[in-house]
């Protein structure tokens, strides 16, 4: 039996793709901004000797090498981080030009992109959350006693809720905590993180948790039926083959007594992603 489901509403679908675009641009323009001072610190100020992370270039045995240093651990990253090989020869650059917006070294430009898409990211996210909170669609991410034909599993719920409730507020607030004007408005804002430089470090590190989520998300979309998944996020419609034993129909009237997390016994690969 094949069932067709209308899985994602129009707001979810459109905000999903705006969000995807915003995240890519925020990531790449953020790396441009990082390149202007490729060191991370803890605390209020940045004493040069006290950076816990540095991506830079140095000379070693007469050769220019790029490196990433995290505390006392250091790795040669020539060609990717610190030193980028170009047709014109190696150039010192923390993140390579193909990962930054703009591609050329231009802090002011990176900031323009970053702040425009930061607004888009926030307003778009608010639209998604408000609409789906009002319509009750967000409930699918939280533990539920109700039977869900196409429920998310626990790991999926944990991941989505983590991104929505922890990572997203964290990256927004740590970003705002770097603003001198907002530091004047709210003296406690950078203190939440232990100082402005700590906020900058957390903002940067959270970026890579987002990147990790995005990587995992795309991977899961790909392995659990990319066409079906893509169709459902573009048109809303998802198709699924369902096994319905003729002799013993599944009883769904009563929730199970313990966890309440009954899932339809379905092919793993048909799960939502």
């Amino acid at each position, binding site marked *: 039996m094949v069932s067709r489901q209308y899985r994602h509403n129009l707001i979810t679908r459109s905000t999903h793709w705006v969000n995807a675009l915003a995240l890519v641009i925020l990531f790449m323009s953020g790396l441009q901004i990082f390149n*202007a001072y490729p060191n991370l610190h803890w605390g209020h100020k940045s004493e040069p000797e006290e950076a816990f992370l540095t991506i830079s270039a140095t000379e070693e045995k007469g050769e220019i090498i790029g490196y990433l240093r995290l505390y006392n651990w250091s790795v040669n990253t020539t060609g990717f981080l610190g030193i980028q090989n170009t047709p014109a020869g190696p150039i010192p650059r923390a993140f390579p030009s193909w990962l930054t917006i703009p591609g050329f070294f231009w*802090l002011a430009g990176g900031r*323009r992109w970053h702040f425009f898409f930061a607004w888009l990211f926030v307003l778009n996210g608010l639209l998604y959350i408000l609409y789906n909170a009002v319509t009750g669609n967000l409930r699918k991410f939280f533990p539920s006693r109700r039977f869900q034909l196409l429920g998310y599993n626990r790991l999926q719920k944990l991941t989505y809720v983590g991104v929505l409730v922890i990572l997203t507020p964290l990256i927004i607030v740590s970003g705002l905590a770097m603003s001198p004007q907002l530091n*004047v408005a709210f003296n406690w804002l950078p203190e939440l993180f232990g100082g402005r430089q700590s906020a900058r470090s957390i903002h940067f590190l959270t970026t890579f948790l987002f990147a990790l989520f995005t990587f995992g998300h795309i991977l899961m979309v790909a392995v659990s039926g990319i066409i079906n998944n893509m169709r459902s996020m573009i048109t809303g419609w998802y198709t699924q083959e369902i096994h319905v034993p003729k002799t013993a129909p599944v009883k769904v009237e009563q929730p199970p007594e313990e966890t309440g997390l009954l899932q339809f016994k379905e092919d793993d690969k048909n799960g939502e992603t």
Partner: protein
Amino acid sequence: MERPSSTISRRKVLLMAIQGAAALMVGGCKNIFDQLHQNKKILPVLESAEGLNRRVQRLLTPKNALAKEFSEQEISSYFKANGNPPPLDQQYVLDGLRGWASWRLEVVGQVKKPRKFSLAQLKRISSRTQITRHDCVEGWSAIAKWKGAPLSELIKVVQPKTEARYVVFYCLDTDAQGTHFYQSIDLHDAMHPQTILAYEMNGQALPIEHGAPLRLRVETQLGYKMAKYITKIEFVTSLKEIGGGKGGYWEDLGYAWYAGI
């Protein structure tokens, strides 16, 4: 139900197609975004976020809210001096050796009482000492103790006319092409209690690399707003006729005039 075996290979083909598309995206992105960035229609759209930043951030700021002030122990051991090299011409160096005896701060423009101040006269206006954090647009922060004349007190002396909206700072330093540095803030920031014309840093006369004899401190904004080597202040209605018309040296190059973020 058994999956048709063809789905596996179709999936493989699709995955390869996606990998290819991703590689193309990454390879092509640089050019796409660079072209968009240089597009005369796109850039103003991106720049529109600046006005939103300014309005929303100022709306959120309580009246007379102050930047955090730190303790003496928290002062940075190193404070990077960014920007142009010091204007080390003969007149500047000799005047510096004589304690800035012939240096004057000229205040002109839309004011009822334009006048010149010597360093001694500025010091007599009244002074404020603050240990604050300096945030560079590049990303670093350094803490220092600053002493100077509150700009709001100077404003009381020169009395801006009602049409004055901006305060422009003209500086001695130039870039490699000889373009003079200048900056501007609006009266809103100029009247902030921590906005001072600093002549001392960490208990010493302002060092040459940090803008001797006089530099601006605006604690609501990033470091590039804080003009060094100031010699002239002008009160104006509009910034369009000055320099490149964007309100400052860095602004003319593409940086935002509002540097509260």
